[in-house]
């Protein structure tokens, strides 16, 4: 059971859980902004760029 859970964690989340967490937060912010008149479409592309850079920078520092 533990190995099964580990497999799905690896399959979905991968080796940096912060990326998945960042995307989940960005989707929540997008959903909240979408109920207002603010341009909610901009949140996800900006979040993708930020989350990717933070993950890359972490990997580069570790090496």
């Amino acid at each position, binding site marked *: 059971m533990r190995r099964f859970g580990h497999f799905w964690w690896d399959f979905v989340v991968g080796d940096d859980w912060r990326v998945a967490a960042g995307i989940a937060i960005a989707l929540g912010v997008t959903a909240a902004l979408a109920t207002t008149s603010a341009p909610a479409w901009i949140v996800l592309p900006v979040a993708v760029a930020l989350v*990717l850079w933070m993950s890359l920078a972490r990997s580069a520092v570790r090496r």
Partner: protein
Amino acid sequence: MGVTRGWRSALAGTAAASAALAVIVAALGPALTVIPIEVLRLVVGALLLVFGLQWLRKAILRASGWRALRDEGSVFEREAAAARTAATDERAGLDWYGFTVSFKGVLLEGLEVAFIVLTFGSTQGSIPLAVVGAAAAVVVVVIAGVVVRGPLSRVPENTLAFAVGVMLTTFGTFWGAEGAGVDWPGGDASLPVVLAFVVVVSLSYVTALRRRRVAVA
């Protein structure tokens, strides 16, 4: 597995995994169509984004020199040597090692393909059309593999990984935002703009990390 452990067990494993995949797809396909489209797009978008960013992250690290490029030739040699030296355990007239490794490989890779085809199909409202597209892609890839094997083998593996990461991230961003309630400016026409954005951002990260690599060295 076929080359190192024998074709009979490898093909049996492949057939068993294909049958298991068919059952999973037959069960999951209709289930996906009853989920509201916004919820589906949100979940599919989030998953595609996470998958895409994983691919993109590794491809950027390799392209910028922070991670070693994969040498497919040496990986094949290493795996083949491990398969040749693995112990033989015969069950039901099959080499169990060859059967289980083939089964696992086909099932896992097949699940990923099935997930992409089913979700693309259901978010666009036509699973049969997505299945036809996937089947056509298999035919094209097999023909291309036979006809232009030489030139294709020279396309760097990391370039393909980069392209896959860009595509998954683009569709994930587009559908994830739509699922969260966003109306993209220009509707579907904004998809190429998102694609261009992801390409430009990713290439600029490759350049920035290359510079940092040179500065550290």
